[in-house]
């Protein structure tokens, strides 16, 4: 393992929840975890808030808080995407707390159920905790509804704690005068910051290396500035990623230390890669119909018969509903495939004839009707295409320099190429040269 090469006992930069790796590393995250835990375990506060931008460790903080709690003492609901209606939110919270599906439809009933649940939980010697991650996407009205939940407190006892974690937008909302009532109920309010300087990045990296069992300096001083820069100026998740990749590269290449150049190369490299492809989430399979198309055709007959069929009238209430509009039902053996259906969409099927009136409409474009005079015909290879010449670009072209006309022709040609993908199907002709051909045609038209 790469970390052993560096004399470490465990990986120092894993981006996974690990309570042993956070002491004194990222002060704002550490204090967010500690204060929220205190609010839950000791304090009588109703709401705790954790604010932080993407990648700064909000979700990991929540996970570490939950993992640190004595599970016997709490009933926990964790909402990871609250961009839903209040009713759905409450159903989910109650469902998680009770372990049973909740499909109650009325808000008043849901609030009543939640209230009852709070008292029952306290009577069991436990406390309800509701964690809401990504709370920045909660709508203002839902935020107000959540505030109403905080009214459900006993005078003597704190019945539940709600932890809201979200991006800066949440802070802006909570600090708005409109939510002053909610703001007053916030017990702890923590903001997780980026690691704000090269020196702090150095402290962060060296602390983590020490916590992983490191006995010596692995990164040279010039590495920290580069690391700070490539981690978007102190995003811990990125520092960890680059730090880990640097150690691996160092092991592969047999380095004694990691310097700024190694970190720069790693930073450049990972910026170019994409996230992993995932398996598509799907439900289980659909049951199939058993009837072959021929029988379906027969069914059409049955259906027509059924309208007047006595038996059928007896089994269906309101016989008129038995006659769906099956206008496209295949007749006989002929079954149209979807691709065979004539396309009346946006494609230009025919060209305007010269004898047509000047303003003949030949196509419906996305932005309305396109007139024949706004089109140029071109023959490219085996294809004839119509090139759109938007009037505003034409006007611009007529009153501009040759150089600018060339640019405008290029833009119109690129548009034409995009709208006619058949032109670039052949892998033997460079699309750029096709574009050049179209541009020349446009130039002649507007020149």
């Amino acid at each position, binding site marked *: *393992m790469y970390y052993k090469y560096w004399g470490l006992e465990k990986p120092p930069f*894993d*981006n*996974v*929840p690990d309570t042993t790796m956070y002491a004194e590393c990222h002060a704002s995250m550490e204090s967010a975890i500690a204060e929220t835990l205190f609010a839950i375990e000791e304090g009588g506060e109703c709401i705790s808030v954790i604010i932080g931008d993407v990648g700064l460790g909000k979700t*990991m903080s*929540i996970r570490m808080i939950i993992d640190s709690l004595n599970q016997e003492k709490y009933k926990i*609901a*964790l909402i*990871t*995407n609250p*961009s*839903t209606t209040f009713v759905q939110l409450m*159903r*989910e919270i109650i*469902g*998680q707390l009770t*372990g049973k*599906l909740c*499909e109650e439809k009325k808000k008043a009933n849901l609030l009543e159920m939640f209230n009852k649940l709070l008292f029952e939980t306290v009577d069991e010697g436990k406390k309800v905790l509701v964690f809401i991650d990504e709370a920045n996407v909660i709508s203002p009205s839902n935020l107000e509804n959540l505030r109403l939940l905080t009214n459900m407190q006993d005078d003597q006892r704190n019945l539940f704690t709600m932890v809201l974690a979200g991006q800066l937008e949440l802070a802006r909302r909570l600090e708005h005068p409109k939510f002053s009532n909610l703001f007053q109920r916030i017990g702890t309010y923590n903001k997780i910051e980026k690691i704000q300087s090269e020196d702090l990045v150095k402290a962060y990296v060296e602390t983590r290396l020490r916590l992983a069992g490191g006995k010596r300096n692995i990164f040279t001083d010039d590495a920290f500035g580069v690391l700070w820069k490539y981690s978007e100026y102190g995003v811990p998740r990125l520092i960890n*990623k680059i730090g880990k*990749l640097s150690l*691996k*590269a160092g092991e*592969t290449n047999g380095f004694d230390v990691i310097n700024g150049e190694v970190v720069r190369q790693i930073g450049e*490299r990972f910026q*170019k*890669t994409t996230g*992993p*492809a995932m*398996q598509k989430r799907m*439900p*289980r399979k*659909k*049951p199939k*119909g058993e*009837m072959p198309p021929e*029988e*379906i055709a027969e*069914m059409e007959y*049955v259906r027509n018969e059924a309208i007047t069929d006595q038996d*059928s009238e007896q*089994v*269906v209430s309101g016989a008129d509903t*038995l006659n*769906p*509009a*099956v206008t496209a039902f295949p007749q006989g053996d002929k079954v149209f495939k*979807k691709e065979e259906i004539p396309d009346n969409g946006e494609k230009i099927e025919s060209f305007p004839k010269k004898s047509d009136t000047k303003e003949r409409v030949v196509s419906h474009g996305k932005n309305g009707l396109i007139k024949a005079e706004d089109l140029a015909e071109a023959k490219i290879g085996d294809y004839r295409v119509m090139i759109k010449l938007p009037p505003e670009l034409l006007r611009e072209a007529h009153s501009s320099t040759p150089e600018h006309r060339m*640019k405008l022709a290029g*833009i119109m*040609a*690129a548009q034409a190429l995009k709208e006619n993908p058949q032109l*670039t199907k052949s892998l033997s002709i*460079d*699309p*750029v*040269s096709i*574009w*050049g051909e179209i541009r020349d045609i446009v130039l002649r038209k507007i020149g």
Partner: protein
Amino acid sequence: MDKKYLARKWFSKGYYYDSLEPNSDKAIEAYKKSIEFDATLKDAYINLGFIHIAKEDYNGALKYFQKVIELEPDNPEAFSNLGYVYERMVRYGSAKQMYERALELCPGDMESMINIAKILELEGNYQGAVNQYKRAIERYPDVVSPRFGLAVLYDIHDMFDEAVEGYTTVLERDAYCVKALFNLGNLYIKIGENKKAVGLFKKILEIYPDNIISWNHLGSVYQALGEYDRAFIALRQSLFLNPFQEEIQAKLIQLLYSRYLSDSGGIGKEEIVQRLQFTLSMNPGNRECQELLKKLLVNNGKSDFGG
């Protein structure tokens, strides 16, 4: 006429419409009609549920899948489908309950095990998800999907060695699992094992010669390895498939320009100029291309660069 027979006929008709034009109103109408004849026709509710999923009407889908559970309270697939709907509604707690119920009804069901792992993952419960995937792998050591799920989880969390091992074990079982080839190739780029990445992207392109991202990655890897001719071929191939990739055009232009400066490969200035003009027609504000074009047109390209 027998109600159940008519219900079945309407169901088949709905299925036929659905295959002809997926999720059409006519299919919905026929399925509903089948339910009018037989309110216990489970398959009709299921297919109506699927149609509502496809239309992203999850409340509608929920109604039908709940009905299936009423009809068949011991059907694990019904709970799986309901779990899926909750998952789409981002009600992960409810989704997990449904998948757990499916697993209770069909102990050891691999799909349910993976579904639970996925929910744990979505809830940010990394360790829980890892353990769940591992349980599924232990039970089904020869099956690819739990291994792939675990590898992706590691990958997302930058657990590079574990992810490499995970994808490798997937490929040992299915050498043509394209997503594993792609993800492993990507990972190798991240950890600087470019030569290994080349083999993987080449393999993907054997299967899907039109996979643009793989051509792009292959081009970048060759470039990183200093194999510029191969990089040129890969990027050019990608741009044949889709010329409207500004970043890739810019990369190819740089390669062409280097060749032009070194007088190798018979690259003419006109070719570079035309490609630059094309790229600028996509984005007239591309400063890098603007500057290079200016240099080529004004200074004949080589003077500023000692070529």
